[in-house]
């Protein structure tokens, strides 16, 4: 068994920042990550980091923009903390050597971004995330923080207090991908989940193959609720074959969207008569899909983004990296032909229910980054607001887990006095795993008698070893890839940018089928060495749990807010829905409840129409 004060699961921007902070606060800190840190998906972020650094800008404006962008579903203390701490954290990155783009006077550059009242997006070329990730990994190397890389975390170790609010997290169980050894990791101070987004729940996403919502699912099954999972941001311009993102820059420079008939549909069909291609992400994404659904898509799948008219010179000057992307990943030369694009899953606003110190309702269990929901982004994330979230809340979680006093949190977590149970919506099928054996003959999570910590960890390790043996010894059945493909397709078909009551119900039925099929899953690769088949089989189980919470949230929230659109009620309904959706696992028999959004912090944020 390994033992540390603080164990950080994940080594993207959030995990690295958390580890540095915990280490600086004096804790013996280790990172456990299924990928080597520099492989994390933070490296894919292009645009930049929002921070109010300059004269004429201030944190209040940033907080205001964030609340408005969230469609008033972010919690004010979270948005304000983000806006207040982002400047210091961004300058900290500069002090660590981050190669930001510069002005003539040598200061870091900032640029305008959608939904911002001031050009406060600080950037490093078109590779901001790459630099942020590498700079923080460099600081981890400098400090000698221990990294267990290519270790896959399979489960959390908690005691089994009946009420999750009384539970405590003691560590994790992980396996060394290279050797296949399953081991326990004891955390004396706390476990911080920084496992990134769940994009792989959809079959078309800008997220990496590794974005499988492992942290979400582990926290969920351990008893921490998932919050606002229905809020998924779809990006209107991703390449059809891979999901690689084509940035808004193309449309910003004058790129035009055409359907298969060569019509400039944003105008011709009246989707956005004023702003056309530059309308907000969700509007453009829905317009594209409408075109395809009505038979005007190219190859019934996508639309064309054309920039040829901008001329070779301008394209090479401003959009050169787009040419590379289209050529390398789609085999298309943007100078001679239009680029195929379609909406792709991009970002999850929801996540593990935490407060502004990163804490879940389970003592000693933290979450930060895209896997967490503080909530900063509410119904819709502004571009450039995720990276500052990683560093601001990663740091806070790290410090808190290491024992620093950050004051009492204003945001509540878990099932508490303020919540209201969901009672309106009838579910089409039983969600959760009640009555199903999806854990491979291993006792359901959180059962048995609590003993002292080491015993708890050893027992959890044994349970995972049994599960691995079961999956590997089984000679036939279903392979995870089949289940995953079915799940992803259902999510993209029914819980995409268009959501209808009927469609979501279909998705829930398919998810139920996936769960049933998963009972018969087996791992064909007989080797203990670098068994990615085994790892992906674990991930697929997590994806089922996470996809289900997305669909459940989408079903119960019958309104149109932020990125969540519902056919039956295409308006924001502040009277009934200024509240977060929470779903807790309850030993496999999920419970849905609501908590009011906090619109009052140091300032008050009156819901207004979100128009730009």
């Amino acid at each position, binding site marked *: 068994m390994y033992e540390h004060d603080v164990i950080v699961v994940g080594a993207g921007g959030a995990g690295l920042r958390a580890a540095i902070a915990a280490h600086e606060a004096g804790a013996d800190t280790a990172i456990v990550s299924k990928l080597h840190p520099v492989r994390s998906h933070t490296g894919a972020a292009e645009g930049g980091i929002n921070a109010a650094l300059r004269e004429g800008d201030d944190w209040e404006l940033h907080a205001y923009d964030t609340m408005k962008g969230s469609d008033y579903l972010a919690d004010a203390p979270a948005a304000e903390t983000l806006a207040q701490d982002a400047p210091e954290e961004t300058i900290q990155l500069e*002090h660590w050597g981050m190669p930001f783009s510069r002005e003539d006077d040598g200061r870091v550059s900032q640029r305008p971004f959608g939904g911002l009242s001031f050009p406060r997006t600080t950037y490093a070329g078109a*590779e901001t995330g790459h630099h942020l990730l590498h700079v923080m990994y460099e600081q981890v190397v400098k400090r000698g923080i221990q990294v267990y890389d290519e270790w896959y975390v399979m489960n959390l170790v908690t005691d089994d207090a009946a009420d999750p609010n009384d539970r405590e997290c003691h560590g994790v169980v992980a396996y060394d991908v290279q050797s296949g050894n399953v081991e326990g990791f004891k955390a004396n101070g706390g476990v911080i989940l920084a496992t990134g987004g769940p994009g792989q729940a959809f079959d078309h996403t800008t997220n990496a193959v590794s974005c499988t919502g492992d942290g979400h699912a582990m926290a969920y099954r351990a008893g921490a609720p998932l919050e606002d999972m229905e809020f998924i941001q779809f990006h209107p311009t991703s390449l059809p074959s*891979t999901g690689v993102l084509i940035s808004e820059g193309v449309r910003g420079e004058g790129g035009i969207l055409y359907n298969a008939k060569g019509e400039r549909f944003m105008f011709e069909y009246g989707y956005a008569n004023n702003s056309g291609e530059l309308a907000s992400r969700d509007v453009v994404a829905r317009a594209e899909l409408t075109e395809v659904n009505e038979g005007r898509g190219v190859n019934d799948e996508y639309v064309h983004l054309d920039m040829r008219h901008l001329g070779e010179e301008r394209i090479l000057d401003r959009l050169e990296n787009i040419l590379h992307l289209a050529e390398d990943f789609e085999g298309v030369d943007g100078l001679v032909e239009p680029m195929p694009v379609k909406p792709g899953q991009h970002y999850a606003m929801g996540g593990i229910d935490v407060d502004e110190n990163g804490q879940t309702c389970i003592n000693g269990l933290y979450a930060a980054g895209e896997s967490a929901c503080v909530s900063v982004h509410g119904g819709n994330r502004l571009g450039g607001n995720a990276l500052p979230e990683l560093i601001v809340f990663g740091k806070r979680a790290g410090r808190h887990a290491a024992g620093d006093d950050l004051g009492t949190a204003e945001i509540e977590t878990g099932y508490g006095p303020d919540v209201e149970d969901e009672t309106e919506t009838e579910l089409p099928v039983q969600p959760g795993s009640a009555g199903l054996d999806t854990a491979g003959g291993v006792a359901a999570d959180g059962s048995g008698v609590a003993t002292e910590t080491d015993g708890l960890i050893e027992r959890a390790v044994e349970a995972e070893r049994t599960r691995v043996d079961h999956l590997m010894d089984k000679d036939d059945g279903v392979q995870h890839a089949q289940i995953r493909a079915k799940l992803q397709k259902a999510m993209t078909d029914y819980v995409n940018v268009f959501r209808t009551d009927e469609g979501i119900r279909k998705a829930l039925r398919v998810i139920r089928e996936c769960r049933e099929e998963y009972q018969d899953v087996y791992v064909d690769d007989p080797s203990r060495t670098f068994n990615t088949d085994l790892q992906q089989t674990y991930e697929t189980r997590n994806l089922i749990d996470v996809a289900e919470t997305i669909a459940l949230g989408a079903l119960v929230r019958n309104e149109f807010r932020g990125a969540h659109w519902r056919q039956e009620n295409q308006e924001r309904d502040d009277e009934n829905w200024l509240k977060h959706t929470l779903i807790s696992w309850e030993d496999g028999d999920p419970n849905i409840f609501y908590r009011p959004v906090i619109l009052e912090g140091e300032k008050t944020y009156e819901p207004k129409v979100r128009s730009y």
Partner: protein
Amino acid sequence: MSTQQEQPQEPESQEAPEDPEMRGTESPQQERLKEKEQGLAQEEAVDESDLEGETVHLKVFRYDPEVEGKQEPRFDDFYVPFEKGMTVLDAVMYARDEFDSSLTFRHSCRQAVCGSDAFFVNGKQQLGCKTQISELKQPVRIEPLPHQEVVKDLVVDMDHFYDQMHAVEPYFQQEELPDGDLEEQRQSRENREKVKMSTRCIWCAACMSSCNIAAGDNEYLGPAAINKAYRFAMDEREDEEIKEHRLRIVEQEHGVWRCQTQFSCTEVCPKDIPLTEHIQELKREAVKKNLKFW
């Protein structure tokens, strides 16, 4: 074991281009466009329309120390339906998900930023996700990176590469920072531009794998680590003192002087980093600073 014995059918060009200083002055896209125009694309591109509806023939290296029948390295054939835009990574993922779930390789981002999937494709180090099938001759031969221990199938042991990267003190070192609240260090645009290419490295190890010197001298820092040192040594935000310290690290016995300017690293780097040039520049700096050299 290692795949070192697997020689590429066509050896890499060992010659330096006539004028190394001229390289990298054009943007990679311009270079590529020019290549296209002149019909000089590295492989004879297969006409895409020929591939539509066809299958792609892959020959994939297989090895597993534990599994009977795989302990002796072998090549497996996979026939994968072609789709427009298909990359080498897409093809091996298809083969894994549809035919053989034990086919093992690293991958994550699918967009050339995570550096996980450098393979040896038709005799050249390339990122699987950044290589279009339509540009390759068939059968497409996919092997793990040469000169590195193979863990399983296309997965190689990266520890040595990481050790070399860590050996150059790969972190910013500057004690004196501006006092003012929220005050950043100043850096000129020119200086940022100077280090820009060097900061693009994604740690894929293609360069190290292509380097004959690294293959012969296990202690050689290798192009990526030296480039990492360059990234800091040339950054004006660090003090002169630390720059000298950095030069000392790279001009040691297994450092810059080992490089024989064969340009193989520069040729394979998926991020178009002018590695050989950076190494040469560090040599010149070391000489300028009058550091003792080997």
